[in-house]
Structures are given as structure tokens and as C-alpha cells.
């Protein structure tokens, strides 16, 4: 099953490689991994999307928690949470397609950030499925390149990951 694991860690050199090294050393999957400092510059917040049985996910969270630099770990998928990912898509935009692409972008609540004679660069935010559907909707033929950040996640309401 797909899980979104969120963790707070010391914002120190090498901390990221401790996490990524753990995943490769123990053979765990990583679908995506995002990391950036928080409002407290000494801490980084990381979101990892992974797949595994309940037993594997339990091991992943325990092993992450065991890393000395990791302050706290939460499996967001265990409760209500929000998942968002940012995608930038550069498409061919010529002739009739220009109007159609603009319409689709509006429907998906995206924005066109850059327009050139032959291309659009579209920004879209949402859960993974929404971004996938957008790609399906405009069709792969038109796409020149895509950049996705990977998911960031946060718990709803009182589910807070802090020190």
C-alpha cells in the first residue's frame, strides 16, 4: 500500500543521505522524497512516499526513528491528511491546441506561467492523481517536458508533527 511518511530532522549536512541510504540499504521503495528547512532553520521537514505491506511500513518508520538526526516521524496515511505536489509542464501550443490547453488548465485550476510562439509552460498543484489526470487530459503527444516536486504532506486539524 502507498504511504506518505513525514519526518522532522536536524538540518545538518548529510542528514538527507542518512535517510536515502537507509532506504537503499534495506531495500525499501521510494516513490518520491522532498525536503526543505522549516520555519525553524535548524530543522528540515521531509515527506517520503513509499510502498509496502503494513509490516514493512512499520519497519520503515521504526528505522527512520532510529536515525539519530531524526526528531520525529509520522505516517500521515494513518489518518486524515493533505497531500500536494507541484508540477511544471511545458507543452507544444500551436493552432487550435492553444485554446484547448488554456481551457484544460483553467478546469484543473492551473496557471500558464510562460507563453512562447510554440509553447506554454503550465503550473499545476494537487494530489498525485490530479496531476496524473491532467497529463492524460492534454495527451502525451503535446508534452515537451514535465517537472514534479514529489508530494508534500501535512496532517489535518490537530495532527501536528513538531519537536
Amino acid at each position, binding site marked *: 500500500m502507498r504511504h506518505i511518511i513525514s519526518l522532522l530532522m*536536524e538540518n545538518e549536512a548529510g542528514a538527507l543521505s542518512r535517510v536515502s541510504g537507509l532506504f537503499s*540499504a534495506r531495500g525499501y521503495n521510494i516513490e518520491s522524497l522532498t525536503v526543505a528547512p522549516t520555519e525553524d532553520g535548524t530543522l528540515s521537514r521531509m515527506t517520503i512516499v513509499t510502498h509496502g505491506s503494513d509490516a514493512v511500513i512499520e*519497519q520503515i518508520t521504526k*528505522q527512520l526513528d532510529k536515525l539519530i538526526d531524526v526528531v520525529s516521524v509520522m505516517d500521515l496515511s494513518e489518518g486524515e491528511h493533505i497531500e500536494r505536489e507541484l508540477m511544471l509542464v511545458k507543452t507544444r501550443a500551436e493552432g487550435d491546441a492553444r485554446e484547448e490547453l488554456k481551457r484544460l488548465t483553467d478546469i484543473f485550476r492551473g496557471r500558464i506561467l510562460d507563453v512562447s510562439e510554440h509553447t506554454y509552460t503550465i503550473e499545476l498543484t494537487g494530489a498525485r492523481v490530479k496531476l496524473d489526470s491532467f497529463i492524460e487530459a492534454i495527451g502525451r503527444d503535446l508534452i515537451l517536458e514535465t517537472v514534479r516536486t514529489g508530494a508534500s504532506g501535512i496532517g489535518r486539524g490537530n495532527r501536528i508533527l513538531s519537536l
Partner: protein
Amino acid sequence: MEMTGAEITIRCLQEEGVEYLFGYPGGAVLHIYDAIFQQDKVKHILVRHEQAAVHAADGYARSSDKVGVALVTSGPGLTNAVTGIATAYLDSIPMVVISGQVPTFAIGEDAFQEVDAVGITRPCVKHNFLVKDVKDIASTLKKAFYLAKSGRPGPVLVDIPKDVSSHRTEFVYPATVNIRSYHPKGKGDSQQIRQAAQMLLEAKRPMIYAGGGVVLASAASQLTELVQLLGFPCTNTLMGLGGYPANDKQFVGMLGMHGTYEANMAMQHCDVLVAIGARFDDRVIGNVEHFAQIPRKIIHIDIDPSSIAKRVKVDVPIVGDLKLVLDELLTVLRSSRQKPDVTEMANWWKQIEEWRVIGGGLRYKNSSEIIKPQFVIETLHKITGGDAFVTSDVGQHQMWAAQYYKFNHPRRWINSGGLGTMGFGLPAAMGVQLKHPGETVACVTGEGSIQMNIQELSTCKQHRLPIKVLSLNNGYLGMVRQWQEFFHGNRFSESYMDALPDFVKLAEAYGHVGIRIDKPCDVEPAMQEAFARKNDLVFMDFRTDPTENVFPMVPGGKGLSEVVLSEDL
């Protein structure tokens, strides 16, 4: 007062009460060696290879409850140390390894003797640090010692660039350490402990399975009390030997791949299993699916939550310091009016006794013609009164030592269980002998393993370490040969050790005493003579039966009850 980073490093070791520093000098640690030269509190032991420095620090730590400390230079110094670090990591041994690094301004430029020490060791340390500022040396070393010793112990590497060790700053050693992301558990959950107690009291076929954690937590007396209070059978893992006295009738022997029949059968057929500081690894329970075929309740007590429910499902997990958890469990059990059911226990012990008979105990066919390796270990036990520190290398001799030397006390059996590092035994024995100067230290090895760190005979000479080396020389890499015989159609691919040196002459060349023993009748007299030489290292080259195999054996991937008892006994 301002001091150099190097002086601060050594002062920190003094503050931590470090007696011995095992190491090897080189360019990146020259400042630190200069600081060592100018003091006499921390004694430096010069080894002949960095791997041995780490194993020696490891042996020192295993035989005491202190942190072992090693010092190596950058580049090859560090890479040579990695096997030792990984050995300590797999067996959770508290250790601090200090490595030199090229100067900070040269890092990343492929400088002479530069490797990414923090990167290379990351997967085999509990934690590691690169110290980039002289002001951070003291606080980093304080953290390193704390991390190495607390919680689940393990090796911690501190990498110090050469310029950092030469810069100057005020020395302040922090009195306390606080790492906000690290809070090892002390006491266990009281409710879980009460639940475990109830489960134990209601058990019909209980089993106590204790591992290296008991030794590391210095909780052997608590374990013994628990086993005797309940009257349950107890088994130890390879790492846990000595955690429960082997001469006690409630001890059913070591379990696992080369464990006793009764220990493995009781493990397989029990209805309540309590695992204490053990981790259900593949050499212990064999095939996980086979193990799970018979339902049983499992109580798992461990300091490391990630050890729990890693390979088997657990009904009552208890995370905490084993000593504190067992103390609390004992209190609950003593205050309970309920006692284990006498009839059920009698039946269970009757069953175990039957398994003891079927298994026939540990046995081998002795010979008056050729030396049987098991006989050497039995004689060692007899000569040393079962009270020696025994280190071992890896292979058949390790298993025979584990089986036939009955350990009654913890920290006496020193072996590389997790990583299985050949070359561990002799350098580990150096650390043990330094920690216990008046005691008998025996290194059980083979002609294969000993050659992986034989250069340490020179270190032993320099530091006058009267270790007794017992080499079971069968001319083969015995365990490899055994597997080739069983599973590879007797094709002994590269397991024959041709062109062996004359070990007697070799020992003599290093300035020690060498004895070659060819006949069974000479085993005991030779050992008498060797152990009487209190001040000499004696190398005993026992020519043993090359066809002897280790039994019982649970073949790899098989279940605990699918054991092969012997060839022809």
C-alpha cells in the same frame, strides 16, 4: 586555557576515563599522536593493521562494560578500520572510532589519503560526525561517547580533519549531553510488563530465549533470577552465551543453526516465548514461515523498537532497558499469588528431557589416533576451570567453542556473531587481555582465520600480552568445506589451505612460544604446559581431523525441527 584540537581530543578521552587507545599513526593524525606523546593517562596500543585496532577496542568493550576506543588515520587507515566497525555494529558494541581526515580546505579535491569517511561508514555506525571546527571537538566527542554507550549500543565515528586538530580554542568538556532527537527508553511500559507476567504464569509450554542484549545490558543476574523463579527452560543465542549459566539444569543449550536439539525443539513447540535482547535472526530461527507454523504467543523485550516485529509477529512488545524491564517483571511476578501450573510444567520438562535423549546431547566420537576439535575445546574447559575469557574467530572452531566451552558468566565469550568476521579473534583477545591483565585469555581459532590478522603476534610481543592461541588446524576452511560436502556434492572448491606456514616457527619468529600437537594424548599435557606459562604468548597448533563436521545442524532455509543430528553416531 587554549589548547589545540589534538590536545582537546586526548583531554576528552581522559575525561571519559579511557585507559587504552588502539591505533595506528599517519599523516592526518600526526597532531593527535603528538598530543598522545605529551601525556601518559591514555595508553596507546600500537597495532599492526587498523582492522586489528578496532577489533582490539571491540574485545576490550565486550569483556567490560566500557566503551572501546580506536584511532586511525585518513584514507586507507579508515578503510582498513571499516571491517572492524561493521563487526561492532552488527553486534551492538559500544565504541568510538576517531579518524583523521585531510584538512578541511582539501576535502573533496581527491587529496592524498582522502576518502569520505562519514559516507563510507554511514551504513555501519550508530552515528558519525565530521568535525569542521575546533570549537566542536569536545561537544562532539561527548555526544559520541554518550551515543555509543546509551540505548542500543554501537560504534560512533568521529572524523577530524588535520587542520581542525591543529587549530586552538578553549577547552570546555560539557558536563551533560542533550540530543533533542535521541531519547533512548529506560523503563518499559508497566501495563505491557503486567500483561507479559500474566502470559508467562498461564503458559503451558514456556520458553525463555535470551540473546546478546542481556550481556550488553549487564542483565545476566536478572535473567538468571527470572528463569529460576519461574522454573522455565532457558536458551541462549550465540551472542548471549554466559548470559545464563551453562551448567544449570534449566539451561537447554544454545539454539539455532548449530544449537542443541532440545533448545530448537522447545523453541519450535513452546506456547509462550519470551525473547530478551534477541532478534530472531536467520541463524537462530531458520525459516520464518516454518517457525510460524506452530502458533505461540511471543513477548519481546528489547531496547530497540526496530528489532521488535522485524522478522516475527509479536504479541507483547516491551521496549526498554533490559535490566529495568526485568527488574519490574520480577517484582510483578513475585507479588503475584499465581504460580506456574505444576502439572503443566512437569509435562513440559518431561517432553524436553525426551528431546534431550533423542538429541543425545552434544556428542562426537573421540579417537586415540587423530585429534578431534571438540576434544580440544573440552580440554580447554577442563584446564581453565571453565573460567577463561575465550575469544574466537569464525567458522567450525567458533561453533565448537560455543558448544563445548560451557560459559557460566557473561562477557567471557567474545566472538563476531553478526558479521562473522574472520581475523577477529586474536586482536579481540589483545583488548580483553589488556582489560584483564591477570586473567586467562584463550583465542580459539583456525589456520584460516588466524592468518587474517596474524601480524598482531607482533603487537602482542610489544605489549607483552600472554594470550593462549589454540589453532584448530585441519588444513581446510572447515565450515566452507562442511557446506561444500553437504550442499555442493563434495566439490571442495578453494577450501583447502595448501602451503600453510610452520606455525611453531612463525610464533617463534615473532618472539613467542609455539607448540605443535599431533596426537590426542598430547592435547592435555601441551595445554598444561602452555597455560602454566603465565607470561608468554603460546601458539598451539593442533592438527585436527579434517573430516569433522559441526552437529547438530539446521541447514540454511530449513525450520528448527528439520535438524540433522549427526552423520553416523
